[in-house]
């Protein structure tokens, strides 16, 4: 049972990293958003599994939150936004896929190395989990950096935050996990609403963040 529990958790966490890579690979927004939904789904599963093996019922709440909010509501919302903006099949990258992937590999390796320095007596589950979570976080950040479009940056941020939730749930018996995940969901809601805001008031004709420069101060 112990071994199985470990393997499944390991599997789920690993697949989360994999999905992160898939996200990096996507270059169309709609596809990207779908991949993110998958990302959220896997997260929900892994959280649920953690809830099961730690028999910590409150974690189910987090899982449900992840499932409903991130895997369904947000993607749908984003899809509608990009459709309304007519950028759903826009290809926007700063760096080529190949390089991004390579860099991502490097990040994963880095996080592994860092985690292996941790003494093994911290139980392996948490340790591996944390390694993957770190990888996911870094990949999410990488995504935010390599994408020019606000929507994909939001997606990147959310996958980063998924990594956090993974880590938090992996941390056995950590208090406030639910609160934190709720707080983050609110944060994300803010961001999405922010995008809506920019869209609704006809100020920024595209929400490409690069366009914001026109309004940066001191440019004369």
């Amino acid at each position: 049972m112990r071994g199985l529990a470990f393997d499944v958790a390991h599997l789920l966490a690993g697949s989360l990293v994999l999905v992160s890579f898939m996200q990096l690979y996507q270059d169309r927004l709609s596809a990207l958003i779908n991949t993110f939904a998958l990302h959220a789904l896997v997260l929900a599963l892994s959280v649920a599994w953690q809830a099961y093996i730690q028999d910590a019922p409150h974690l189910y709440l987090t899982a449900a939150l992840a499932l409903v909010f991130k895997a369904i509501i947000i993607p749908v919302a984003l899809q509608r936004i990009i459709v309304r903006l007519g950028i759903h099949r826009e290809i926007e990258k700063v760096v080529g896929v190949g390089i991004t992937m390579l860099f991502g590999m490097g990040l994963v390796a880095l996080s592994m190395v860092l985690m292996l320095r941790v003494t093994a007596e911290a139980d392996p589950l948490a340790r591996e989990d944390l390694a993957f979570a770190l990888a996911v976080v870094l990949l999410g950040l990488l995504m935010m950096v390599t994408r020019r479009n606000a929507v994909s940056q939001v997606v990147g941020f959310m996958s980063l935050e998924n990594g956090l939730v993974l880590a938090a749930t992996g941390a056995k018996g950590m208090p406030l996990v639910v609160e934190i995940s709720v707080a983050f969901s609110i944060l994300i809601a803010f961001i999405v609403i922010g995008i809506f805001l920019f869209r609704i008031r006809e100020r920024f004709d595209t929400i490409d963040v690069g366009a914001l420069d026109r309004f940066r101060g001191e440019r004369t």
Partner: protein
Amino acid sequence: MNFDAITAILLIPLAAAALLAVLPGYRITARLNVFAALLTCLAALTLLFGRPQAGAYFHVDDLNNVFILLTTFVGFTTSVFSASYIGHELESGRLTPTFLRFYHAMYQLLMFAMNLALVANNIGLMWVAVELATLTTVLMVGIYRTHEALEAAWKYFILGSVGIALALFGTIMVYMAARPVIGEGLDAMVWTVLVQRAGEFDPALLNLAFVFLLLGYGTKVGLAPLHAWLPDAHAEGPTPISAVLSGLLLNVALYALLRFKMLLAGNPGALSPGPLMVTMGLVSLVFASFMLYRRRDIKRMFAYSSIEHMGIITFAFGMGGPLANFAGLLHMGMHSLTKSAIFFAVGHIAHVKGTQKIADMGGLTETNPVLGWGLVLGVVAIAGLPPLGIFMSEFLVVSSTFAREPLLAIPLVFGILLALGALFLRVNSIAFGEPRGPTMASNASYVPMFTHLAIVFLAGVYLPGPLVTWLQNVAKLLG
């Protein structure tokens, strides 16, 4: 829990926020705002006489007591300033009554968040509080709804959120490090417990955690290269918020950082956090000093000077040791007071001149002597000239550093001199020379500004004994 000072400084702002959110009318709300801030300040003062013992969620020790007093006091004076400021905004129509209500509510909410972050004994709770503070300020920065304001808010928001995320990751890792030692559950996040047993934690995890915390909370502190949000947020938001941001929020974030630094210091196996902080401090200092030269917007300029001073403070705490820590604490307090005073002045100046562009200001000491000399005095203070408080702290930092690490003192001195040059280059053109630009009458109250400057001056020449011993204890605490 029984009603004590902590509850007071948390509940008063919260209740006030709720109340202000619904109350209409500028006069009442402004008054109420001031009143609530005053009450909070008084409640904080009672902490000097009796402190409730540490609970699982809240605690007060020498360290955060300093910060609480500072925060509540500056919060109060700023609310006084904001009363006169916001009135003008309302007349000039930059703010609508609804937004005004929202503004006051947010102000109190911010106060609550900061107090919470300060008294929190639980690192998770502290994180939540800092996040809350960030969000409220984001909303206030964007309150004018101009392109620039929204853009600044958006930038602040995104960078802030990333910072928050990193900080959370660090917090989680601290928990992971603590759990094997302390055991699962709440205790592993209670700071007082953590610091006692920090020695047994897994060093590698702690290091990793600190890196994330440094970057996460460092974003809020505004250390280069994480500073990007700070100048625009200061420049585009309402001036009271700039004052609170520079004077308080940065300190709160730094306070959080210090807490974790103490954890690491308690662990022999972990890397010493000093070098990291020293490096980031110096980078911020020199970078900000250079950035000061090209500024055209007066508020953005002083925002950069805040970065510079945060650099100095971080450097001081990074150096450690009784002298440097003492200097760091002193500098922190002096900087909050001075910088907020400067922003008070700047707010009025912006009203008088109807612009924030330095190019459109000139000869202020002639057109508005009180305001002009107030600004000059503030700049003199912030540039570290005697006989004001920052001179003392910079004296201690520089001299003690040069005695210990001569090579580190060189860039420090260089940065300080550079900043002084830039600041006076600008203040010369603002306060002296032929009067430039329009001049409207200002019905501002200069009381808050000069109160701060008076305190800074006093501290520069005379520090009361109890305060000194207190700060020295804190300095010891910081190791």
